[in-house]
């Protein structure tokens, strides 16, 4: 085909451009997108150490309330009234105390050490946790880890699902049968049990959570990618590519994949939401993020025992961060779906 002929024809808008136009017209979707973008900036700042890098520092008294509530009364902080009323007169034990001769030496040694008195704050912006750590800093750092886990495991699941789905849909036959069998095996086991079985052998940690969720969560995407590849592999443009000698790999990933990538993107965004929720549950059950790191799940797990004592701020902060992000992300994913794949509109 002549290149100038192609250029002369009026260029029709591509799928991404039309989708972007549709997305721009969706006010809810755009607002949600802006919120998600703000979260991503916050995460970037937290990851690079600009904010919340000191989340482990114990800045305040334990369970310090948020500033708007004002400091807690003394008895709430665990100081009993009247405890100091009965002070016994000191008894001189120096003649029988075997350590007495060395007290002065130790006191001198201690005096040479630098000793800084830290003043613990009575209140913090959004309160403090059991150890006096800033809840806001924790929530920001937790956002980083939770979203990181959600996105990375969704990427992993998408990779597995796309590659297997492409192979099954494109080749069919023996390969397709084998992959269908694999799919049946994975879906025969209830999700949560599969996750548990993987957790039992793989251990704990952030990387492990990503691996577990990715390895167990690819089935839905596989199914859809497979259907798309079956549909596309018989189309004329693919046959044309075959006719000019494109290899199966090129036809699958250079020709068909771009045409189904919108479906994959929509599915992946739905996976992110699901995996963020799963991380929270796994961390609560002790199979997720380890205790020296913070995520929304570990914050909520700590909050359970705090709430019973009336310290609700960590729970409220973590829940609010998560609710805002997940709502915005799902609304954005819905808007993406409507823009990219109008056929799916209204489907869950």
């Amino acid at each position, binding site marked *: 085909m002549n290149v100038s002929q192609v250029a002369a024809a009026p260029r029709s808008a591509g799928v991404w451009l039309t989708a972007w136009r549709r997305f721009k017209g969706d006010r809810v979707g755009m607002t949600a997108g802006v919120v998600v973008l703000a979260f991503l900036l916050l995460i970037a700042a937290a990851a690079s150490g600009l904010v919340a890098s000191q989340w482990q520092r114990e800045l305040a008294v334990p369970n310090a309330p948020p500033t708007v509530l004002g400091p807690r009364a003394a008895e709430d902080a665990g100081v009993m009234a009247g405890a100091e009323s009965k002070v016994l007169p000191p008894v001189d034990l120096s003649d029988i105390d075997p350590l007495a001769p060395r007290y002065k030496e130790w006191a001198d040694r201690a005096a040479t050490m630098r000793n800084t008195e830290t003043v613990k704050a009575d209140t913090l912006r959004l309160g403090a946790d059991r150890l006096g750590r800033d809840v806001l800093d924790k929530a920001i750092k937790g956002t980083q880890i939770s979203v990181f886990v959600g996105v990375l495991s969704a990427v992993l699941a998408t990779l597995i699902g796309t590659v297997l789905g492409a192979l099954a849909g494109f080749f069919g036959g023996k390969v397709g049968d084998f992959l269908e*069998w*694999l799919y*049946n*095996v*994975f879906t*025969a*086991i*209830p999700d*949560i*049990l*599969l996750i*548990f*079985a*993987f*957790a*039992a*052998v*793989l251990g704990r940690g952030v990387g492990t959570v990503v691996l577990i969720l990715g390895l167990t969560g690819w089935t839905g995407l596989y199914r859809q990618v497979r259907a798309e590849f079956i549909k596309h592999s018989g189309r004329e443009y693919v046959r044309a590519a075959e006719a000019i000698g494109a290899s199966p790999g090129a036809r699958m990933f250079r020709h068909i994949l771009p045409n189904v990538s919108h479906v994959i993107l929509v599915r992946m965004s739905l996976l992110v939401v699901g995996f963020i*929720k799963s991380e*929270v*549950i796994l961390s*609560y*059950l*002790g*199979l997720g993020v380890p205790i020296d790191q913070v995520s*929304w*799940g570990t914050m*909520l*797990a700590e*909050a*359970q025992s705090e*709430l*019973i004592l009336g310290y609700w701020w960590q*729970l409220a902060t973590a*829940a609010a961060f*998560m*609710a*805002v992000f*997940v*709502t915005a992300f*799902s*609304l954005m994913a819905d808007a993406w779906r409507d823009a990219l794949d109008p056929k799916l509109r*209204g*489907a*869950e």
Partner: protein
Amino acid sequence: MLAYVIKRLWQMVPTLLGVVLLVFCLFHFFGSDPSVILAGQNATPEQIAAIRQQLGLDQPAYVQFWIFLKQIAQFDWGRSWATQEQVSHLFATRMPATLTVMLPILILDTILAVPVALGVAYVRGSLTDRALMVATTVALSISFLVYVIVGQYVFGFQLGWFPVQGWSASTWVNLTQYSPLPVLLAVMVGLSPQTRLYRSFFLDELGHDYVRTARAKGLTEDVVLFKHVLRNAMIPILTNVGLALPGIFVGSFLIEVFFSIPGLGREVLLAVNRSDYPVIQAATVYLAMITMLINLLTDLAYKVVDPRVTLR
């Protein structure tokens, strides 16, 4: 019908073999050495070697796989490594508690979600519909964990309507006293996604020609909705309930752990934490079996709901 059932059962064999193979490979190649777990921290190499021989771990992998298959076929899982309890006994004693909580959840969820979804689908696009959809989006974005934490605190601790947690030996006491709070919370959580899903099913059906025909020939709205639309939407709804059914046997792990309900879910989680492989393996393989059987039953139920369905 019988031929169909036999065919389906026969088709399950390769899948089930795959499940067994997956579980075997997972624990055999990635799990830590069971003999080390079993022997404890102060074991001598001789003790470990003895345990290895006892468990057959010194045999080649295919022999071990054969032993594993034989165990499954004979329903013999041996004993839990942690408690020395028979795995089958463990399952039989934990199952009732799980079902006491999970069955009411599934039934209430479905009974409540279907009419609500039909209602909002009928008034699609109205303020009620849109408000409910926004409400469910927000409700969905809050973690299940937050619901149970706050729910237990408010209903159990502050208002004192329900016991905070607990369990007794009597099923009746459990049903009336201890399970209402977890059931209430789980239904609150489950209602949003169910309503959204069923609404989309109903919307799909309401757009069909037969609805217009039914209205055109003068049927009342009640008949159109409940005899025509509802019945046609039953297939996807049944599928969905069928998909949820296997879940009631493992129960909601979160609910059982949170409310200290001595069910199967909590037991499996404990097993995961103790690296108690026989319990996890048994749970996985049996749940896969149950899942496949329920899928078959769901397909058979289609026939009852919709006589046009031919089972092939």
